[in-house]
């Protein structure tokens, strides 16, 4: 757990004092990721560097797991905190393995064990240890350097990590990949993480809590969903942008938003039953499933047919389905792209679990707001 109490930093510059951080208090529970977010120069980096005492606060206190950081030797403190700097900062004179093992080596850990751990960590981020352990940083791509920068901070298994725009120097596609990788690792590792970003999408994706800063002051500290649903003031609201409702889509899973009470048709149902189901549901389409419960087609309300026609003869193929584990952003994208106002939601086995309609999406966002 990390607790900041009335943290303030004033830099004395030739042009007078600069209040880089102004009376910031917050508390981050163990195992959570807190993203510090805000415009350039708002004090994110300064706040972070006070935690590992690269910058001494002007006033205020910092506690890590209840311990006052002022009472800890700064060198010991830093070795117990994983640190990823914005510029990656791999040491060009050291191999990848030696870079990863910097802190374990400083701590005097057994060399064989730490090298084995380095290999494990490389594998965790999809880099072949045999190929990469002996390489030098200049022999890595930007994305690989960034990965090594992150696992270097993890090598001594610190309970707390500080990450200053760790995925900043990388193209958007690779960034998504590394973010996903990192979130997967965090699922298992449960580190307490302070993460600086100036990218709202990244913050919404990574954070358990977001801290919004403006010129040194903490404007709001809340979960992403709560932040997007209820911005505390007009600054936060304009910072989040007028499309913040759309940003919330990625926070809701399909399983939470889909309708589960509906009638599915079978291919050998008579068309008359199809018509009844469509009328009762009020939806433009009804989903047709096979004997295993997998969606095979959809029946439109305007399908013209004789009295003894079967549903299976009239149904059109389903153009898209969505996994119940996916987020609503993906689901809505697929509804738009495939023109599917009724989207079948399926489990891992491809079996129909529910349906998503535009109305159900809107309703689930509204109910999330009501939960707050």
């Amino acid at each position, binding site marked *: 757990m990390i607790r900041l109490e009335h943290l303030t930093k004033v830099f004395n510059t030739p042009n007078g004092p600069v209040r880089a951080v102004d009376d910031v208090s917050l508390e981050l529970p163990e195992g959570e990721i807190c993203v510090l977010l805000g415009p350039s120069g708002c004090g994110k980096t300064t706040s972070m560097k006070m935690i590992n005492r690269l910058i001494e606060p002007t006033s205020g206190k910092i506690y890590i797991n209840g311990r006052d950081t002022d009472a800890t030797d700064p060198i010991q403190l*830093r070795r117990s905190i994983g640190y990823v700097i914005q510029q990656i900062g791999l*040491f060009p*004179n050291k191999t990848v393995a030696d870079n990863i093992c910097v802190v374990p080596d400083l701590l005097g850990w057994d060399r064989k064990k730490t090298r084995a751990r380095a290999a494990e960590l490389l594998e965790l981020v999809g880099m072949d240890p045999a190929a990469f352990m002996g390489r030098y940083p200049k022999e890595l791509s930007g994305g690989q350097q960034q990965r090594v920068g992150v696992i270097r901070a993890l090598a001594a298994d610190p309970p707390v990590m500080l990450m200053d725009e760790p995925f900043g120097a990388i193209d958007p596609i690779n960034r998504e990949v590394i973010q996903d990788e990192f979130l997967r690792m965090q699922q298992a590792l449960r580190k307490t993480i302070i993460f600086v970003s100036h990218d709202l999408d990244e913050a919404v994706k990574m954070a358990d809590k977001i801290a919004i800063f403006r010129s040194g002051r903490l404007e709001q500290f809340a979960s992403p969903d709560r932040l997007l649903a209820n911005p505390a003031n007009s600054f936060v609201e304009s910072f989040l942008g007028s499309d913040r409702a759309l940003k919330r889509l990625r926070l809701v899973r399909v399983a939470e938003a889909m309708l589960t009470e509906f009638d599915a048709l079978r291919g050998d149902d008579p068309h008359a039953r199809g018509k009844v189901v469509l009328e009762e549901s009020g939806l433009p389409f009804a989903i047709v499933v096979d004997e295993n419960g997998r969606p095979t087609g959809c029946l439109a309300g305007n399908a013209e047919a004789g009295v003894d026609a079967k549903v299976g003869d009239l149904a059109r193929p389903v153009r898209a389905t969505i996994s119940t584990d996916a987020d609503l952003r993906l689901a809505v994208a697929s509804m738009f792209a495939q023109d599917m106002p009724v989207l079948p939601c399926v489990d891992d086995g491809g079996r129909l679990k529910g349906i998503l309609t535009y109305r159900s999406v809107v309703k689930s966002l509204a109910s999330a707001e009501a939960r707050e």
Partner: protein
Amino acid sequence: MDIIWFMTGNLGLIGEHALRHVSIVFVAVGIAVVTAVPIGIAITQSKAAADVVLYFASMMITVPSIALFGLMIPLLSPIGYGIGYVPAVIAVILYSQLPIIRNTYTAISNVDPALREAAVGMGMSTFQRLRQVEIPLAIPVIMTGIRTAVVMNIGVTAIAAYIGAGGLGTFISRGISQSDPRQLVTGAVSVSLLAIAIDLILLLVQKLLTSKGLVEESRQ
């Protein structure tokens, strides 16, 4: 032809003088490294100190060597070292300060601040940071300064023959006083060859000391 006959006939003597020459330069530059590298590192902490130190080191190098030797005779005579090996070594130590201090200072100040911050932020002490990061990164430039000092002072040491320090300069001073071109040329050629040979050896040492991670395009 005469000159070559002289050289081949005196190979033993040339070797002896060369050894003496090298011993003056290496002992002196060795001592200079021990003083100049720490000074070069220390002055990265203060721009003002750096300016003062580099100013005096530059002044030092503008004093002609013959004048420096002349100055040392009265200064060191009371302790019995007015001439010979000791003043030669002292002169070389003084002349070596500027190239080594300046290159160390430049190389350490040019270390990427992000690497310094990463080192400190990961919990290295000042000494660990210097040993593991800053000095390894600075080694190529520091070694270049040492090579400059060595080559330059092989020349200075040749002149130290006039204060009885021995070395290859002995051929030159005798060649001049005896109007003997054979000795003169032998001295001049062997001093040059020595400078080239030692510079190449030190270049090899520099390559060995430099991390493979710092070499540009090592692979084809």
